[in-house]
């Protein structure tokens, strides 16, 4: 466990330098190894956490695929195919429980797309301003403010969307429901902006200065240099920002729980009430019988959410790393 990792050798070590270890040195070496081992063990906790999340959410989700008992109430087919007579319905608490998940998927997508349409252009432009136009002082104000924005608890944003934003939006657009996909999407944009901003800003900054200088030296104007050289070079990072923003949006719970109205309707209307996967789990898990079909279906939705954000984040991280490496290589 201790001293065999490559690269260890170049680190100065007192014990290694001594020709013959005295008992004090042996003691020191022993306690050093113990400390290193303990620290490494704690570091492994993060790996363990991810595994435990996978295992324990997965364990409660799996009966949806395998358990006869669950299948007596809901089959995998019934979760996606329309219910005879009533169509696509999510209504787990009733005489004849219906578990069609498509309205929830549609709700999640609808709200996420609205939030990205709002947040991505705003945040990327803001990142462009901060990295390319703003002076040092403006930057020192704007960046902490956006960090503060990221620090606003999502329940506070949800509350604001519920109480204030929904009224404004209804007055302006005359939406059929006061709480709807648009309100939730706007609220969600609030939570998505900081991450899209910071990842895009990082990637714009990662573009070597030589690109700017070269473009300007060739006679390009500032906007030409930006739009034809800098932004294209940073484009993978900006794409990654959008991908990570997507991951943040599909996983956000409190904002959509408070602001979306929570009616599981399968449609593409942005003015009507909608229900997301996260809000469904949050609203229903508290009252569900542990071990029932409903319980397992909710965990299955959670597992799906977990796997999709995992995939989205891995893709996002990979793009960022790839871009960094290629920019380093060319600068």
């Amino acid at each position: 466990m201790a001293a065999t990792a490559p690269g260890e050798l170049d680190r100065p070590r007192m014990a290694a330098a001594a020709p013959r270890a005295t008992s004090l040195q042996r003691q020191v070496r022993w306690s050093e190894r113990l400390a290193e081992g303990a620290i490494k063990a704690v570091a492994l906790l993060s790996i363990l956490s991810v595994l435990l999340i996978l295992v324990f959410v997965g364990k409660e989700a799996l009966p949806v695929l395998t358990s006869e008992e669950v299948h007596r109430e809901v089959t995998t087919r019934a979760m996606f195919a329309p219910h005879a007579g009533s169509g696509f319905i999510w209504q787990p608490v009733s005489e004849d429980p219906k578990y069609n998940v498509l309205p929830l998927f549609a709700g999640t997508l609808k709200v996420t797309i609205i939030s990205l349409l709002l947040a991505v252009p705003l945040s990327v432009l803001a990142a462009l301003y901060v990295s390319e136009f703003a002076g040092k002082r403006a930057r020192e104000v704007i960046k902490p403010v956006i960090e503060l924005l990221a620090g606003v608890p999502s329940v506070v944003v949800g509350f604001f969307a519920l109480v204030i934003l929904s009224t404004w939006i209804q007055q302006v657009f005359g939406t059929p429901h006061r709480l709807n996909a648009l309100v939730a999407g706007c609220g969600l944009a609030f939570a998505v902006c900081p991450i899209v901003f910071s990842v895009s800003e990082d990637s714009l900054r990662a573009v070597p200065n030589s690109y700017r200088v070269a473009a300007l030296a060739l006679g390009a104007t500032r906007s030409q240099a930006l739009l034809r050289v800098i932004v294209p070079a940073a484009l993978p990072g900006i794409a990654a920002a959008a991908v990570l923003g997507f991951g943040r949006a599909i996983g956000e719970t409190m904002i959509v729980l408070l602001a979306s109205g929570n009616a599981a309707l399968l449609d593409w209307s942005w003015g009507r009430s909608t229900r997301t996967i996260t809000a469904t789990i949050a609203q229903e898990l508290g009252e569900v019988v542990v071990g029932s079909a409903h319980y397992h279906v909710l965990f299955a939705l959670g597992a799906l959410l977990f796997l999709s954000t995992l995939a989205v984040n891995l893709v996002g991280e990979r793009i960022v790393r790839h871009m960094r490496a290629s920019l380093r290589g060319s600068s």
Partner: protein
Amino acid sequence: MTPTSRVLPDLQVRSHLADRALRGLSLAATAVIILMLAIVVLDVIRGGASVVSWEFISAAPRKGMTEGGIFPAIVGTVFLTLLMTVGAVPAGVATAVYLTEYASSRSVVARLVRVCIANLAGIPSIVFGLFGLGFFVATVGKGIDRLAFGGRVTYAQPCLVWASLTLAVLTLPVVVVSTEEALRAVPREIRDASLALGATQFQTIVRVVLPEAAGGILTGGILAVSRGAGEVAPIMFTGAAYFLRDLPTHLNDPFMNLGYHVYVLATQSPDVDRTKPLLYGTVLVLLLLTFLLNLAAITARARARRRAAGHG
């Protein structure tokens, strides 16, 4: 510039316009984002300022939560985040120490740890709630009850300790990222000097490197507390309660929480108009708490960065 403008004055004027348009557009986008924050903050202050008083902070809710204060929710939030810190900060600091001080750059384990930390930060908070319920409450809690309490339900229920640990896992990446940045800013020479004086590596880390990085570690801790204080989804099923007559005194007590209180008041109230002032008051307290913590963290980090720059 001059030759171009002589040949193509027209194009240049247009290009300058484009420069200015792009600058204006991006500035406007920045302003919109800042304005969003300002509107929310101002609205919460407007609605909450007249409600928040000493009584509001120090009294318990009364009459089905339509009167009184939010004292139990504040206490619950403080206990929750303190316990969370006890879990997250040592683990986060140790992880960062491993990554920067022990692991070699080619270590597969270190890379895996990094990937897991990054992914942990991206997992939706509601999934942490599911995990806390499935793992801490239903598995660890049940195990403790079976071993120590003869199967009597003591820890196999949503309570303070499980909610805290769930949040500790959620905030671990915050601590790790902050601490790692701070450790990387400690100059190599300081480590070398300590080692050259005969200190062991562990002594160097504990007595030289960590004190140098204290500012960054503090930043991480504060950010984690601020994040934990605002999270609701992970604690909904792992310990937060609607209303409790008593403050939590044991690790296995349920607790009230500011964020959860906001959710409860906003959605479950029998009389919306009468609870609205209380709702605004609670939101204001929660927002102030997280803002002050965030400002403290941003200031501490700025100071730590200046200090690090001074070293170089």
